[in-house]
């Protein structure tokens, strides 16, 4: 990796000053499980790295009667171990357990998980975010078994690999962001993720100097679950995940959210499929129908048609898991 400046400020003000004053590219260091690898691979080459580890206000979980507020620097292990999180949001706990590595869950943070770089092997092998070679997409011509089956019309064909994002979107979470001007703004979870149409475009809606400080999740009691399909049983990236949440109104489902992970350049919200369940009891037939509906618009590439089947099944199983 290149030589770089390293800063470990104690306050957000300092951090944001460091982020905006750099003359070259900057990177934010949270847990480092993604950034350090990306730097070693030479795909991220910051002139300055700003660590958020010493900023106390970014850590911890606050529970009130109407919301749970999670600091972006809370580790994934801390989140999974929190009793209120476990009680209210099993979909997040399952997603964290699914990482399959205590070491990564101990180091990785909530904010870092949401801001990861894609794992696309063309990107990681130095062919750029879109995996281009001589103006042609290597993803299309080559091995795309792990690539997107939705939202892949443009040049971005990688998948978003956040473990928490599908669950947070399903739970109607809000991302709290602090601007370089010290003003806070709220971004609905689903709006945080962007599909770039040019390689220099951001994967999130964070502006320069902005820092994701907290995630706020409504504390309302919902039924929610995550189901993921991996190749290995241990440490592995999922092939597909589905997170679902709904309100159980006396046996019928309301406010159903269904979100797929690892299928598109962003977490993939399938509202139309979710709507088919409104007011219904979640049973095997309803869940299976929702799964089928969720993948109706899938556009698999040459080698990843099997992910359509996996997405269909993941939605069904996540719904059935949520229904208990």
């Amino acid at each position: 990796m290149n030589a770089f400046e390293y800063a470990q400020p104690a306050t957000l003000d300092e951090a944001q000053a460091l982020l905006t004053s750099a003359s070259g590219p900057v990177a934010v260091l949270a847990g480092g499980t993604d950034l350090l690898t990306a730097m070693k691979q030479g795909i991220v080459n910051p002139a300055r790295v700003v660590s958020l580890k010493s900023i106390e206000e970014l850590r911890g979980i606050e529970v009130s009667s109407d919301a749970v507020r999670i600091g972006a620097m809370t580790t994934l292990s801390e989140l999974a171990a929190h009793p209120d999180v476990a009680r209210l949001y099993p979909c997040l706990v399952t997603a964290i357990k699914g990482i399959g590595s205590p070491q990564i869950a101990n180091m990785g943070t909530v904010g870092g998980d949401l801001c990861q770089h894609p794992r696309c092997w063309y990107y990681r092998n130095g062919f750029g975010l879109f995996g281009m070679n001589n103006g042609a997409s290597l993803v299309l011509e080559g091995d795309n078994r792990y690539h997107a089956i939705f939202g892949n019309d443009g040049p971005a064909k990688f998948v978003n690999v956040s473990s928490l994002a599908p669950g947070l979107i399903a739970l109607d979470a809000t991302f709290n962001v602090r601007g370089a001007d010290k003003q806070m703004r709220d971004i609905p979870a689903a709006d945080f993720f962007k599909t770039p149409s040019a390689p220099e475009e951001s994967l999130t809606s964070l502006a320069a100097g902005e820092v994701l400080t907290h995630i706020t999740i409504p504390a309302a009691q919902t039924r929610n679950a995550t189901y993921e399909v991996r190749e290995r049983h241990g440490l592995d990236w999922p092939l597909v995940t589905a997170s679902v949440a709904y309100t159980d109104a006396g046996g019928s489902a309301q406010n159903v959210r269904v979100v797929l992970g690892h299928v598109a350049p962003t977490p993939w919200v399938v509202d139309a499929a979710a709507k088919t369940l409104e007011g219904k009891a979640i049973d095997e037939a309803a869940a299976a129908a929702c799964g089928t509906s969720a993948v109706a618009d899938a556009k698999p590439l040459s080698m990843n048609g099997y992910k359509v089947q996996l997405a269909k099944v993941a939605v069904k199983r996540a719904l059935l898991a949520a229904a208990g």
Partner: protein
Amino acid sequence: MAKNAWPSADKRSLIGKRISRLDGPVKSTGRAKYAYDISRPGMIYARLLWAPYGSAKVVSIDTSAATQIKGVVGAWPEMKDGDEVRFAGQVVASLAATSEEIAHEALKSIKVVYEVQTPQMNDVLLEKAETKEQRDEIPDAATVDKTFNEAEVKIEGHYGAAAITHCCMEAHGQVAEYRDNAMYIWPSTQNVSAYAAGLADAAGMPASQIHVDCQYMGGGFGSKFDSDQWGAICTRIAKETGKPVKLMLERDHELMAAGARPSAFANVRAGASKDGRITVWDSTAWGSGGMGGSRALGVPYIFGNIPNIRRVSRSVRTNRGSQRPWRAPGHPQSCLVTMAALEDLAAAAGVDSLEFFLKNLDYTERPDVYREELRIAADLIGYKDKAHPRGDSTPGPLKRGLGISLHTWGGAGHKSESTVTINPDGSASVNIGTQDLGSGTRTVVGIVVAETLGLPLENVQVNIGRNEYPASGASGGSTTVGGVSTSTRDAATAALNALFEKVAPALGVGADQLEAWQGSIHVVGDASKSMPWVKACSLLGQIPVTGKGSKPASDGTQLDNSGVGGVQMADVTVDIETGRVTINEFVAVQDCGLIVDLKTAESQVYGAMIMGVTYALYEESIYDPVTGRMLNADMEFYKLAGLADVGTLKVHMMTGPGYDERGVIGLGEPPVISPGAAISNAVANACGVRVPTIPLTPNRVLAALEQGGKLA
């Protein structure tokens, strides 16, 4: 006189017991120093620049900018302008610097211009591949066709295994240091005694002045026989700069260039009578191990005496890293193709798989051994209770099934020399130029000395891993244990007999009446006449005695043997909605003659089963068809099984009468041959369709289910 022959069961104190490896504590505490751990004063670090294209012509290499970087000691082109790059990962240039980080970064400043060409990457589609004919074996084509056409039961199928790489936990490489007109090398090698010869040109000195030291190894699996291009480069830089040099491959390069098991594919036709007696085998097989092609598959595997056989083979050339012998070269692939096709034949005949294999055992070389092993494996996995015809009819997406496979290997001991020294203070040591790949060779050598001298294992100093010691063969082909145990038994016996010559007069008997047993030397048949070991050794005066031994043994006694059989059975669950395979139980039954250390023998089998689950379910070298780059040259998408993946493993070693008296036989290869076949067969039995190629990943399982009309 002590004799070379192995002691009878009632006279074994250590042999055949479960004994923990001697180097377990130093390995588990990190005190064991591997090549990567070697650090020498003033050491510099070499790194290699590799070609990023599967096929290209080198137009120019410019190292000048790199040499200007602070900390860079030197940079050297390793190819000439106009040379052809034949796989991505081929070494183009080398560089040395005062730190690993500088070396890694400075590589980016070496400017190479390539004329990029289109690589040949396809090995799957035979008709589109660049093939080379191999010797076809078609004794009687007309009869093969006729027998197939008239067979009561017949199958036609496609089977295969993707190319994989060795993925040693410890990368290839070495440290080299030139001083006092000699070269000192700390490599990771399977080939301690012959390693120096490969570096003589690079060192500019004869092999006799090159000292090799490899005490611990993080795996080789057949990929570490050669001193390799990087060994030569490291040695050359050490000589040229006068500084110690460390050159270990980085993980991506390790996976691209330092290992490869060829792919293998076959179209098979086979026939049988309706009661399951095989009548004909007809196959066309191909595979690729890079630009050197690959050898023909040995199919039908094990069942070589099937009456009508036609075997056509093609070697496919691809722009991939060169194949290296991978643990039982060719056997896992041949076994998969054969056992899968035969299992399909059994299913087509409606004959239970176990019954089918039993019924055809006379087509193998060792039917009695397989029969016994099949019985034991069936008991261990609960075959009777779990077996069902192909396709689990239980409702729901989870389908369970059993699979069987059989294998063989040679495993005769290699050439080996050894010396055992007994000191006047009663201590004993053994010197032998072998290596311990992690399999337990160091421990086995110690056990043989201790058993022979009647001493506890901790009283024996085991010296291995240096080419100053008596030459012993490379560790390949499961030849090590037979070789080192023979030469060491021979040497220890010779040393003991020299000691007996001193002790015999003191006990008033002839040396031929003595034996060493449990810490003393005593007269055979008269326990009252004995002398404690230490007192006996004091009779040596001030001069130690050294016994020399060899394989073959000096007196011609045969202490090793060749030819083993093994049976494995897998119990799996297939989720037919997701295509995901879970190993429930996995059983291995294996013979290997006289077992020196039951614990390390069982460990070898456990390790092979885990490696087998890995290549059966997950492992695959994935190449980009456009650039020729290996896309998963990392340990993130090059997937190895972890503890959560392997299920319950059960190992049963065949020991006792009928096995022990055969002598010592190697065990490294055999247990890794059957896993792919056994697991593939279990998956077919569970979900009702054959998944043609391994690894059995969800995409392949779902595709087979869809094609077979079984997708849930």
